[in-house]
């Protein structure tokens, strides 16, 4: 399989503002081209748009707005992991030889229809994500003896790290007490345990090996991809305190990259809610089951940004179609040692974990210098 690299990126700040989807797609793509004037748009073979927005024909629209006439142009929707699904599609186009260079642009508005999976009637009248998050939280806390105070460290850590991210939605830091005393959504979930839907866009450009070497120094290579969908409905999750799709996707990605989880220096993981972060770390194998919070507490106390350096979804915000792309940009910046105040200690290998619909589907990417 031929190598595929990430050669450029662009983004806009995540906000609660009301902007047209076409406008924000254009802005992050424009940011990419402004930062990389050496890119010849005529060499872009495909334009993929990642979004849950109901607007139609967004990829040809974006292509026209930025002056590209691609061979391939279409949208990709897979709820919250649309972004990494799009990157995997771009990778496939390039590694198959169908394309040499692919633009992937993700965007979402604060009022995205992708926040609720209407099809999932097994959830009864409890379709909002706060209900599956509450069930996971209750089960995880009970299985491993984790208190609300201990779990609140996820939110405290990720808001703190987001403060170093100029594009993050959150600009504040919080204490454990403030998380615990924030609005009680259910007995097992506080407002500050939740990532927030928002308006945002992020774009990356993927290229074949020859093109990547020509355009970037150093190119960041996608060396591992793992994906798994176990179901669409939340109630089909066999475990409520671990994430099966994440476990399987992580194993596949690490096998493809020929690495073990201990080789990973920095990771962006899908902390849609506080409880997701320890469950993900455990499912990926960073820790044993039930020990995810020990790792998170240690990282927080030692000011180590290894997990979710940009602030995760809780701190950075969650514009669904842009999230996986924004996570990927963060790992590219980390590996290029350009993450400024968020920079971890000269990482060589990074991982992105992005999931959908109560972890019924997960995507894991491994990136390397």
């Amino acid at each position, binding site marked *: 399989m031929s190598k595929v690299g990430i050669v450029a990126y662009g983004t806009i700040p995540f906000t609660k503002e009301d902007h047209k989807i076409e406008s924000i797609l254009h802005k992050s793509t424009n940011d990419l081209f402004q930062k990389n004037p050496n890119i010849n748009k005529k060499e872009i073979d495909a334009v993929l748009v990642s979004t849950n927005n109901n607007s139609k024909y967004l990829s040809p629209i974006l292509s026209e707005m930025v002056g590209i006439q691609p061979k391939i142009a279409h949208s990709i929707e897979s709820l919250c992991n649309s972004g990494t699904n799009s990157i995997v599609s771009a990778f496939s186009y390039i590694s198959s030889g169908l394309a040499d260079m692919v633009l992937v642009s993700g965007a979402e508005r604060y009022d995205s229809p992708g926040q609720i999976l*209407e099809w*999932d*009637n*097994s*959830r*009864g*009248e*409890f*379709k909002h994500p706060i*209900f599956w998050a*509450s*069930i996971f*939280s*209750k*089960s995880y806390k009970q299985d491993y003896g984790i208190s609300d105070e201990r779990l609140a460290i996820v939110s405290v850590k990720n808001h703190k790290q987001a403060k170093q991210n100029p594009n993050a939605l959150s600009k504040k830091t919080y204490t454990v007490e403030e998380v615990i005393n924030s609005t009680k*959504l*259910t*007995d*097992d*979930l506080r407002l500050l345990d939740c990532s927030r839907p928002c308006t945002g866009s992020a774009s990356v450009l993927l290229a074949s090996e020859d093109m990547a070497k020509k355009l970037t120094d150093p190119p960041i290579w996608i060396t591992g991809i793992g994906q798994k969908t176990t179901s669409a*409905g*939340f*109630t*089909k999750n066999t475990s*409520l305190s671990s994430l099966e799709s994440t476990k399987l996707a992580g194993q596949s990605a690490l096998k493809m990259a020929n690495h073990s989880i201990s080789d990973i220096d920095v990771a962006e993981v899908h902390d849609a809610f506080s409880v997701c972060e320890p469950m993900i770390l455990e499912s990926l194998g960073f820790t044993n089951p039930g020990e995810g919070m020990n790792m998170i507490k240690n990282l927080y106390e030692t000011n180590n940004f290894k997990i979710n350096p940009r602030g995760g979804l809780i701190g950075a915000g969650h514009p669904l179609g842009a999230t996986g792309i924004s996570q990927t940009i963060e790992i590219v910046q980390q590996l290029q040692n350009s993450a400024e105040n968020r920079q971890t200690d000269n990482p060589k290998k990074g991982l992105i974990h992005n999931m959908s619909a109560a972890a019924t589907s997960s995507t894991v990417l491994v990136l390397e210098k």
Partner: protein
Amino acid sequence: MSFESELSKGQFCIPECMTCKKIVWPPSEFCDNCNGETSLKKGEFEGKIVEFSKQNENYFCMVEFFDSIRLMAKMNTSPKKDQIVKISKCGISEGSYFFHVI
């Protein structure tokens, strides 16, 4: 007779494959195992509470039937894990299913 037409009348039915007898959930006309057609079993089915939490004064529970169907239901009294319950009320409201258990 479809699952939804029965549910809209307040009747919870179990969809079962007429060929391989697998219980099919979420409800479907066809079996996800052998692709055979399904039929509906009527009755007062007992389920088990797998997990629950609470919003305001209402409990919401994940309830399991026949080791294969899991759904989210409302409960007015304090639940316990592994508690055996029955559906007391169900239907369709604004396009979404709803289930209450006692």
